[in-house]
């Protein structure tokens, strides 16, 4: 549409007879509008969309495979043919970066999903049923908070062969504790409310009340905390890969690339700089988005 048409466009609409009722906004729409005002969160959202799309689609569009070696070429700085340069085996860094991104993002999402599932179910059950069961479950969480989990994950990965599924499970099993606490606190506050009493009066079972009536009402904190868990999980994966315990070659992840880059940075600094920058950008975006969501959904940090 030509720009000049725009001012006339509203007038072309038939004038309404009466002032129409203002459209209502759902709380989610309100939150979305608040989020859009937060420039850093919007930036984070777009950066994440671009990075994920590039990682998923990118490798198919490239001329090089991620393990395609060119030993004659060796390590070269960024050039027209290889935009981000090549590594010591002559592999294209951009392709490896996008491919590694798939793994890093997949680990981030999958392990977060594990943590989310355990944490939500555990917290909801503890909060809803209450009493002795709640005391037992939360005391268990307290004790587990005191365990050196980073050490356990390292031990697991050293001993049981660095398998990627184990990686998901191990990281997920570490990260669910805070989610359980948050969900429990929210459930405890909700379960006294009248609509829950109404659901009980209607004879609904506990499972139905928890999953159909309570959980939808605490989606806000869950979404926020999930967004903030993903960067933590990705950091843990990269940390393990950096120690040589995560993803194994010829597969790559951002952690692996950063580790390789750090070893060769003296001669070939681009091998460290690009993976480091992309990984940091992604974590940055996730953190900004999570912070923005927290403000937009007005979630106060949980206190139990």
């Amino acid at each position: 549409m030509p720009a000049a048409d725009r001012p006339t466009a509203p007038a072309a609409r038939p004038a309404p007879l009466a002032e129409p009722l203002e459209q209502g906004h759902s709380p989610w729409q309100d939150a979305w509008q608040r989020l859009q005002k937060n420039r850093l969160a919007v930036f984070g959202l777009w950066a994440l969309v671009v990075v994920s799309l590039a990682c998923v689609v990118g490798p198919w569009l490239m001329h090089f495979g991620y393990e395609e070696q060119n030993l004659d070429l060796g390590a070269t700085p960024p050039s027209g043919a290889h935009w981000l340069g090549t590594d010591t085996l002559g592999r294209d860094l951009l392709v490896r970066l996008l491919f590694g991104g798939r793994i890093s993002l997949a680990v981030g999402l999958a392990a977060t999903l594990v943590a989310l599932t355990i944490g939500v179910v555990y917290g909801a059950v503890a909060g809803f049923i209450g009493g002795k069961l709640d005391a037992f479950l939360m005391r268990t969480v307290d004790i587990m908070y005191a365990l050196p989990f980073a050490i356990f994950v390292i031990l697991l990965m050293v001993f049981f062969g660095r398998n990627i599924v184990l990686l998901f499970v191990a990281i997920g099993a570490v990260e669910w504790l805070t989610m359980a606490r948050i969900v429990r606190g929210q459930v405890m506050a909700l379960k006294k409310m009248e609509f829950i009493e109404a659901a009980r009066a209607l004879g609904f079972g506990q499972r139905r009340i928890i999953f159909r009536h309570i959980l939808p009402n605490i989606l806000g904190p869950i979404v926020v905390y999930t967004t903030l868990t993903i960067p933590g999980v990705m950091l843990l994966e990269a940390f393990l890969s950096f120690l040589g315990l995560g993803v194994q070659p010829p597969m790559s992840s951002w952690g692996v690339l950063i580790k390789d880059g750090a070893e060769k940075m003296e001669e070939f600094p681009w091998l460290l700089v690009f993976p480091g920058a992309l990984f940091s950008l992604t974590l940055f975006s996730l953190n900004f988005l999570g912070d923005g969501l927290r403000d937009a959904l007005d979630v106060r940090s949980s206190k139990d």
Partner: protein
Amino acid sequence: MLRFITSRLLQSLLALFLVITATFFMIRFVPGGPFTAEKAVTPEILRNLEAHYGLNKPLGRQYLDYLGSLARGDLGPSFKYPNRTVNEILADKLPVSLELGLWSLAIALVVGIGLGTVAAIRRNTWIDYVASTFGMIGISIPTFVVGPLLVLALAIHAGWFNASGWYTPADRVLPCLVLGLAYAAPISRLTRGGLLEVLHQDFIRTARAKGASEFRVVTRHALRGGLLPVVSFLGPAIANILTGSFVIETIFQIPGVGREFVNSAFNRDYTLVLGTVILYAALLMLLNLASDIAAAWMNPKVRLEA
């Protein structure tokens, strides 16, 4: 208060016992043993070795033996360092990690609380934005990116420091800076958030009305409540800092506990793995308890419930 502490100590002891048991049996069910990598070990020598370290006894018996010597404070002999005990090795490595940790902690506290306080007082000015951006950057960029980049810039190109090692005082600068700033970032965010919550409360207005200087209002009245989130964060954080960041010790080749732990796991050095885990878990639990007590002391509203 005393009841709280005793009950928490008992709880910690139980948790510690669980950690020891879980770790003990986990490492035994893993393929490979401490002597599998040794070349040219004949079956007879292997048997002798195993007999020497008691590895030929039933597993349950070994477990009880271990608990017994642990009760006497003896973490056992190392399987990989001949003629050295785990106690000696840890006594060797711990001071290094402690030195790294204490300097880093000092940097983290000074920079973190300083920046957070300034940001909260000058809310929504450029100072606040700079401080908040620093906090976000510090949280998002991992130490294993910052560390190598700083080495590249300041050690390799500028030549001000050695790229790795732990010999001269100058060798301390980069690792402590990287580790310290990594913890300064979350501390500055927590300080800012905590202070903002406190600064508009009535007792602050009262303090101002009494004519207290702004400096006194902040340092004497606001910070006490405002630092509560920081104190809760510090318990586990200090344990992490003190026992050495595995990554920092790896990057800078610092002979501390963290690096030793990763190596001992690779080497299947059972006793050394267990010793490090126990050291770390005990420290973590003690510091958690300490930070809970400190939080209660700072805020009478927090009641200690065992």
